[in-house]
């Protein structure tokens, strides 16, 4: 059912597909390699002798009697209590996403609808804070946090992550709100809504894709953060990323590295689920038909 305009010359098609294929391999290979390797022992996956060992699993068979082993996972999850880090990560990310989105939608809406000049400067300031390396902020926080005795706790980290993330959510949601015509709020208010009802009943349902997209970015920031979480959390409160890093830091002990590999693979799972689940929501063009032409 392709029409003429969409049909492309063969060389161009080949080039496009070739490019996509190369990109796919480059992007997917490290992941697949790690996934495969996570079921081997350290002597295979980090083999000095022959990299093919990682594929065939020679040492794994020698040590465990089978080509695949769950030792890495068992060590990470049971022995090193990786599940604690998972729970911590869940708490941190959920809180960061919820708080960022709440402040971001309300603030972004207010900025988008207020006609005042200062909105521009607020947004510029937000951009500057966003552009600063996270570590500059964190190093400044350390001393006050120690003195106030709030260092090492999850809520502290959540607040810092929200602070780092907020400029971006505010900026992004602000531009989404700008793309929604003011007429919608106005009809809603004439139809009997308060400002807030108009926001909740009319604007947010239309904004949903924007909220989901922004929420996803916030999630990724909190989920992948290393700088803040590694510096602000105690051992037992650590989230997944610094935990994995700490596995890697202790290479002396046999098989500890494989804990890191297993943990990395575990940490990637939720990301796939998330993107698959929300990909239908991340669409735009929902406002079509709201106003004239």
């Amino acid at each position: 059912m392709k029409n003429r305009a969409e049909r492309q010359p063969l060389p161009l098609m080949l080039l496009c597909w070739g490019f996509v294929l190369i990109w796919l391999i480059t992007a997917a290979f490290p992941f697949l390699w790690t996934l495969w390797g996570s079921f081997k022992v350290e002597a295979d996956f980090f083999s000095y002798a022959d990299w093919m060992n990682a594929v065939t699993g020679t040492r794994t068979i020698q040590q465990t009697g089978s080509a695949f082993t769950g030792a890495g996972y068992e060590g990470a999850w049971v022995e090193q209590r990786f599940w604690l880090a998972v729970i911590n990560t869940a708490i941190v990310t959920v809180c960061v996403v919820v708080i960022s989105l709440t402040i971001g939608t309300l603030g972004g809406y207010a900025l988008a609808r207020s006609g005042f000049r200062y909105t521009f400067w607020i947004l510029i300031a937000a951009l500057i804070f966003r552009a600063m390396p996270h570590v500059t902020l964190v190093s400044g926080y350390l001393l006050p946090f120690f003195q106030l005795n709030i260092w090492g706790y999850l809520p502290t980290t959540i607040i810092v992550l929200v602070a780092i993330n907020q400029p971006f959510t505010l900026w992004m949601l602000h531009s989404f709100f700008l793309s929604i015509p003011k007429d919608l709020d106005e009809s809603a208010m004439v139809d009997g809504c308060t400002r807030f009802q108009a926001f909740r009943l009319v604007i947010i349902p239309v904004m949903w894709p924007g909220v989901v997209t922004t929420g996803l970015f916030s999630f990724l920031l909190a989920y992948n953060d290393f700088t803040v979480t590694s510096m602000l959390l105690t051992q037992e409160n650590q989230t997944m990323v610094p935990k994995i890093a700490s596995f890697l830091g202790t290479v002396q002990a046999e098989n500890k590295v494989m804990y890191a590999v297993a943990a990395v693979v575990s940490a990637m799972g939720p990301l796939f689920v998330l993107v698959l689940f929300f990909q239908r929501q991340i669409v735009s063009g929902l406002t079509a038909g709201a106003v004239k032409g």
Partner: protein
Amino acid sequence: MAQLRLVNVTKAYGDYVGVRGFSLDIKDQEFLVLLGPSGCGKSTTMRMIAGLEDVTSGEIWLGDRMVNNLEPKDRDISMVFQSYGLYPNMTVYENIRFPLKVRRVPAAQQHDMVMRAAQMVELTEYLDRRPAALSGGQRQRVALGRAIVRKPTVFLMDEPLSNLDAKLRVSTRAQIKNLQHTLKTTTVYVTHDQIEAMTLADRVVVMNRGEIQQVGTPTDIYDMPANTFVAGFIGSPAMNLIEGTLANGSFTAEGLRIDGLTTAHSGNVTLGFRAEDATITRQGGQIAAPVYSIELLGEASMISYRIGGALVSVKAAKDYRAAIGEIVEASIPAGICHLFDTASGKRLGAA
């Protein structure tokens, strides 16, 4: 009582004044039409009544309440927006029901009210569609349906028919008129279509550059324009306006002299008359000039002359024919003439 009173309402955007000193009493159950060229402040006036725009100065009274500081929702109005303002995530049915839901109308009544409104705007086939899947005219009817679904104290309609085709426009116009008659709801209606204004209005407000030019019944406005702007805006074609001088009841301009005007004024005046009031004659006409163009309108022929700088039209019978350049005489008796002061544009006493 849904009487609406505007006292000296002004809206300024920085230095630019969108609406200036708008004062008007709108009677209960009245159908008021705001008419004026694009950008004259009609929508702004409406939006101030609705509460969507702050009033820079002046007062708006709804019944015996001063509503300047009331939220739109507390003013109990419903409005058709010039740009529709439909909710894109809701179906037509939900769009029309929205005001009922928000205002907590008992759920049992909602369905009937929605269906009645949908029938009125002929949308019953489209109730399940989203606005994106509708044509411009259909969207406009959804906006109209949403406004008429409940009975507010005041209806505000901002060009609600602008996107409908000619046939639907005539029938919807009649529906709106009938609806307003049945519901007896005070209505303010914005349009720049004169026919709409003439057919719907109890009273018409002609605006220009943010100021009221004239308020009156459609007949008043047509027969007694208050100034040259109204004269030149109302009617199709608009009134012929010729600048000249007046002395002792005689008006003279280049190529034109009209005697017997009953007026005490003298000096520079603008004389106006309507094309359909003047007639083509064989001899003794006040104008005897070459025909500049002839347009066949179907129900009449329109002869135009160039007199002074102005284009002057005279309506002739539909089978009348003349060649361009041919000298034709037209009779413009003093009785059909309107006189305006050239400097101020204001109408001069009985002509």
